[in-house]
């Protein structure tokens, strides 16, 4: 329903529990299952069955039902929002078409609470028509007033929603009729549809009793005044029972289609991932996230659980500090990139369930530059390039003598966060490869907040990170020079031409022109290598062999959870 703006892994894959954070992919393959499984998925053999309760493993029980207060990448917020609330439209995982943001026709957005949208000729206003007869779980009508009031809440400074900036181009929302909402825009952009649709519709009749100024002071109030528009609602009516058990919402707008199939969903907290996986194999859960690639065979062989492999939007990379010599020289950064065997990393760490990355625009995105290819791994050429830049082997014998220039060794420290064993392993392998081309590379793993502080302060040589770009493909935060002071341009990359191209892309309304602008941005980034892009991983989750209808994808593992069904009860 949302463009995964807030799923945990959208940006830095820094979630504490999940080293392989969620992902987003612009074009999603359906989740694949390895062959030769005992039992397989019930999807192929049976029709959806009504009834049963699916048990989902979560790192912690989500306790905030109001997404405006939930915080950025709050763990497991996505599942609770998808259980409890609906959006105007449902974003579809396949967004390979440049028109995706501009049309509700597939593969962009499907009608959800709204049944249609009509744009004005100048695209400065959009008229959204709601389905007739929508109701909240308490029977109150869901109207355009809810839509208007939701926008007021999203943009109110006292509410201080983390993602209020998404709505900055919307200047007004009007509700001329209970089923008609009109959105007024400041300017036309490619991302208008996604901006309009971002966030769930909130229950005005239930939540407007608490003034916006009190929302941050009484965050627990919402769970005890909860009404839902999504497929499920809390099973316990008592105050504060947002996490835990959920039962079918009989007033869900797709109830006439027999949805949801399940009687209920139970979220069971299992904070320790290794223990969670063991319990998944013992049949405790119907769904668990983040299976390490090394454990894939175990799930393939299990009679109880099966792996689900699907692409993500995540890219892993090394951020180079372009203000710190010698990493301020693009040629040095390019040589370092060529010294890293990224395909070997993919094979060693992901057993092939990843692809070598070229830039932050993943290989399946509509604006990916088809001419872009990874810098080839060539350690001999890398060393030659460094020597051409004035680096010479230190006195001694052997081909792998460290390089130095003007008496200064080519020394670098790779930082990464200690919460991700996979990235720590990757950093160790990269350091070893860089040592072979003459760099004195070392690795230091630090706690995530210390890592963030180092990034903000520019106190690093290189940082191994992961991030994922949302479907807006807006790279300004990472690579525009205006984002050095306040943003995530941690490499301190500054290129006037790239700045201009990024600004033009943001203002573009023609998809084809926008695509060409982004191609040129990618060419610049590929040339300048402010990052060494390493790999685009797949994500592996696990489902029980009795669970049907699960279609995890880059937008969300919980995509259309109302279509989940169980072949048999526990």
């Amino acid at each position, binding site marked *: 329903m949302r463009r995964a703006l807030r799923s945990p892994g959208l940006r830095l894959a820094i979630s504490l529990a999940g080293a392989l954070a969620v992902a987003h992919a612009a074009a999603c393959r359906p989740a694949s299952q390895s062959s030769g499984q005992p039992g397989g998925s019930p999807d192929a053999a049976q029709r959806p069955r009504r009834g049963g309760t699916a048990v989902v493993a979560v790192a912690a029980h989500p306790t905030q039902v109001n997404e405006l207060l939930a915080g950025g990448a709050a763990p497991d917020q996505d599942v609770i929002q998808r259980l409890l609330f609906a959006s105007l439209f449902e974003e579809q995982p396949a967004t390979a078409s440049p028109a995706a943001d501009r049309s509700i026709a597939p593969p962009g957005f499907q009608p959800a609470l709204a049944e249609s949208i009509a744009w004005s000729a100048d695209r400065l206003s959009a008229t959204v028509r709601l389905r007739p007869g929508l109701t909240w779980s308490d029977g109150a009508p869901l109207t355009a007033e809810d839509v208007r009031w939701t926008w007021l809440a999203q943009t109110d400074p006292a509410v201080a929603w983390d993602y209020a900036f998404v709505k900055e181009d919307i200047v007004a929302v009007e509700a001329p009729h209970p089923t008609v909402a009109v959105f007024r825009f400041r300017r036309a952009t490619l991302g208008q549809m996604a901006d309009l649709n971002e966030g769930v519709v909130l229950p005005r009749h239930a939540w407007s009793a608490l003034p916006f100024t009190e929302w941050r002071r009484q965050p627990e109030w919402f769970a005890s005044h909860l009404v839902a528009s999504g497929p499920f609602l809390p099973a316990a009516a008592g105050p504060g029972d947002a996490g835990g058990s959920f039962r079918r919402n009989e007033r869900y707008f797709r109830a006439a289609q027999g949805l949801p199939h399940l009687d209920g969903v139970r979220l069971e907290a299992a904070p320790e991932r290794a*223990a969670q996986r*063991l319990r998944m194999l013992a049949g405790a859960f119907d769904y668990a996230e983040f299976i390490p690639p090394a454990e894939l065979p175990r799930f393939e062989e299990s009679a109880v659980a099966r792996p689900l492999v699907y692409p993500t939007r995540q890219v892993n990379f090394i951020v180079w500090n372009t203000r710190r010599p010698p990493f301020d020289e693009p040629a040095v950064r390019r040589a370092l990139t060529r010294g890293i065997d990224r395909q070997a990393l993919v094979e060693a760490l992901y057993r092939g369930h990843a692809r070598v990355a070229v830039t932050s625009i993943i290989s399946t995105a509509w604006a990916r530059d088809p001419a872009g290819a990874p810098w080839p791994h060539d350690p001999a050429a890398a060393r030659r390039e460094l020597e051409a830049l004035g680096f010479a082997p230190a006195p001694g014998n052997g081909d792998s003598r460290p390089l130095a220039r003007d008496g200064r060794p080519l020394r670098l420290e790779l930082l990464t966060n200690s919460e991700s064993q996979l990235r720590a392993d990757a950093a160790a392998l990269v350091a070893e490869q860089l040592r072979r081309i003459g760099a004195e590379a070392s690795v230091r793993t630090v706690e995530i907040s210390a890592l963030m502080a180092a990034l903000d302060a520019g106190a690093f040589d290189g940082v191994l990170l992961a991030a994922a770009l949302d479907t807006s493909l807006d790279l300004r935060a990472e690579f525009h020079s205006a984002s050095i002071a306040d943003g995530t341009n941690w490499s301190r990359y500054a290129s006037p031409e790239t700045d201009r191209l990024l600004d033009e892309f943001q203002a573009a309304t023609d998809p084809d022109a926008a695509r060409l602008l982004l191609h040129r941005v990618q060419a610049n980034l590929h040339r300048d290598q402010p990052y060494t892009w390493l790999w685009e991983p797949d994500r592996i989750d696990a489902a029980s062999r009795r669970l049907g209808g699960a279609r995890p994808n880059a937008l969300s593992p919980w995509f259309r959870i109302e279509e989940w069904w169980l072949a048999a009860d526990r």
Partner: protein
Amino acid sequence: MPPWIRILARRAGAAVVVVAGALSLAFFALDALPGAGERPDRDPRVGLEQRQRLRAIYGLDDPAWRRAARWMAAATRGDLGLSLSRQRPVSDLLRAAAAPTLMLAAAALALELAAGVALGGWAARRPGGWIDRLIGWIAVVLYSLPTFWVALVALLAFVVEWPVFPASFAADRGPGDLLRSLALPAAVLAATGIGAVARFTRDGMVEALEQDWVRAERARGIVESVVFRHAFQASAGPLVQWVGIELPRLVSGALVVEVVFAWPGLGRLAYDGVLGRDLPLVLGTTAATALLVLVASWGADLVHAAIDPRVRRPVADPWAPR
């Protein structure tokens, strides 16, 4: 004023100092960490302006000493603040988590005492014999095992490979399910303690059984089981004192077990609080743990006094003015 009231008052005063000290340490240590007051999983795209707005809303712009003083003042009124990660009053979260933790700790303690005393008593029957040596070896192994490793191995063995325990652990079910859910986490938590109790019991019993009064009882023809019971009573004092030390360890040591078995107690709350840089939650769990330590220590003193008349003798108050 009776001396016991003075002693009690001094102990209460000392307790306040201990708890305030622990809380101050926790507050300033966490506040000094990079990124304090911000979620570690915050979205980096959320701009500085928004972050500053949130800091202002939550009062994080004030100096640390002022925030600490404000928190302490509110805590004395029972207001432990709002958990930033769970967005609930910390006191509500502590209330919900205290019972599962106490339940787990009590079950583990009961297991430790039952198994440890039985093993220690058995070993004391023939000091130096092969049973004594075997039990001594078992005790050392149990005492040396890392709890995290034991927990994962137990999960693998008794839930996955040989499923005698349920794969779901929940503290909010009926008595039958609750006992089945509790058994494995409690056994894991008790594992290291069993070794210690066995050693304590064995050494105390061996020493007691060598006393003259034991020889006298045996000479009078008192049956061996009664002699053993008397010897155990005579050697139980240090064990009770040890329980006073062990109870806080069980509560704080429950963290690992609670995290692995997803047991919804104080340990897991503290774990979540630390990972989420949730200062109010960490302070709340620190306060709760510090209070539990003090209460356990007092409880052990009272039990010790109840079973050992020598402890009840009036003694000079070491802190009394001389």
